[in-house]
């Protein structure tokens, strides 16, 4: 159990973007409405060179959110001690504003599959995920935030709803939550539930950061829509509407635009951030 206030504080209630090296000069010279940056932890675990040098420069100008994509918090096996040590080292020298990871697994039996794989929502999973979060928070010496996944299917063995599952993990571990509104929309479409109701059930008091991103559209075997989280396109209008609904309930939060594949030119990404700023300005803090 990590002793921290329920709502993770630190990032400004402003738009941020996932950092891409091709935007380095734009961010230094003309950051516009961008109030903070997020990096993927695993891309900054080399010994030196340009990535580390750029990160040092950026961290002098922007609050940095470190977002892990490889710890496999939901893994059946124990957490990789070498990877825990790398995270501790990165958080130690960079001293980022916040750290977050995913409700997912990616490593099993020594193989890292480079994807965020799904978990059954059971008591056993709650225990395992909570133990792993305890271990991480004790290792890096700070609170983390846990992000809700994009779901394409459901486990028959699940007995908990996702919001209840996340609330329980947050209560047991003292971790905060990272609410990905696009993931909510994707999962709700794929699993046929009401995304607004999901947001209303979600423990928003624990949320210290919101994610927005684009998705791809496909169909399942029965011709039903199958949305796929891609981070490779603009945020769609229904997701912006869901953000408005979220902010009306939560008040101001830091909002990240994620665009990781087919990365656009800076003005296009910045326009997404401006739209997030507009959404913030519509609600009272």
């Amino acid at each position, binding site marked *: 159990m990590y002793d921290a206030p329920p709502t993770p504080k630190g990032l400004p209630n402003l738009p941020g973007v996932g950092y891409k090296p091709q935007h380095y000069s734009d961010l230094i010279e003309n950051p516009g409405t961008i109030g903070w940056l997020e990096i993927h932890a*695993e*891309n900054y*675990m*080399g*010994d*030196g*060179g*340009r*990535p*580390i*040098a750029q990160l040092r420069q950026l961290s002098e100008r922007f609050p940095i959110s470190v977002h892990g*994509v*490889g*710890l*496999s918090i939901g*893994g*059946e096996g124990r957490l*990789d001690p*070498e*990877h825990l040590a*790398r995270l501790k080292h990165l958080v130690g020298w960079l001293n980022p504003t916040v750290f977050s990871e995913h409700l997912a*697994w*990616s*490593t*099993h*039996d*020594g*193989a*890292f*599959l*480079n*994807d965020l*794989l*799904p978990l*059954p929502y059971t008591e056993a999973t709650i225990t395992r995920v909570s133990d792993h979060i305890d271990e991480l928070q004790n290792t890096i010496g700070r609170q983390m935030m846990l992000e809700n996944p994009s779901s*394409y*299917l*459901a*486990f*028959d*063995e699940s007995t908990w709803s996702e919001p209840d599952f996340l609330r329980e993990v947050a209560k047991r571990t003292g971790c905060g939550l990272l609410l990905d509104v696009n993931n909510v929309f994707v999962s709700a479409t*794929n*699993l*046929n*539930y009401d995304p607004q109701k999901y947001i209303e059930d979600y423990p928003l008091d624990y949320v210290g950061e919101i994610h927005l991103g684009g998705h791809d559209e*496909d*169909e*399942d*075997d*029965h011709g*039903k829509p*199958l949305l*796929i989280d891609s981070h490779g396109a603009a945020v769609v209008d229904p997701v912006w509407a869901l953000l408005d609904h979220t902010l009306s309930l939560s008040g101001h939060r830091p909002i990240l635009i994620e665009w990781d594949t087919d990365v656009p030119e800076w003005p296009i990404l910045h326009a997404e951030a401006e739209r997030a700023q507009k959404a913030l300005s519509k609600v009272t803090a």
Partner: protein
Amino acid sequence: MTVTQTTFRSAILDGQQDRPLGLSDAEGRPAGRRFDVYRNNVAVSLTDALATGFPTIAKLIGEENFNAVAGIFLRQSPPASPLMMHYGAGFPDFLRDFEPLAHLGYLGDVADLELALRRSYHAADAPPIAADALASVPPEHLGEVTFTFAPAVSLLSSPWPLHAIWAFNMQNGPKPEAVAQDVIILRPEFDPEPHALPPGGLACLQSLMAGNPLGIAAARASEADKAFDLSAILTLLLPDNALTSITISQPSEV
């Protein structure tokens, strides 16, 4: 019905296997194509990582062949760590042993070169010696000088025109001629650059990197190749931040 991660992992990496039972859509029907999203994400993301890490190989065999070869490699050698910057360390040997591409005997060496470039890119930074550091050594002590090399520097030995194959594909260089080329990778600031080594260069640099003084390294290089020219090596090393310290070793008591 519990779906273990062993079952899940195995069905992701082997598309011929049945999809795991116990995974459904919202109406309780088997997940079907929904499971294939994960199969596809894993295969595409790892193939992309290999294509990013080995662009010359992709160019040499074409995108379609590369994707097919990567698809085989990633299933037998998925990443052992979440650091994708290190993924593909086994790819050069995989290519050397891959029968359908045996006629392209140089692929393994080219993949080694690309791996070395990537390692250099992420290697630790180290302040270089002053530009005039060697010039300030009294000429009679030059043979006793030893160097420390920057972590970003590495050597490759090849019976193929390794540098020329890389330059032809990646830098619009001239058509490679059938000569063996050893290569040194240097990183002047942040971007690693491969350079073809002059005759005897590999023997000289291997000796220097092992900690031998310049006089001994030069002698080894002359034995390896009579055309060895020390000034050509120093010209290569000095401007590109390859050296991080210079020491005059104690003359041996002979």
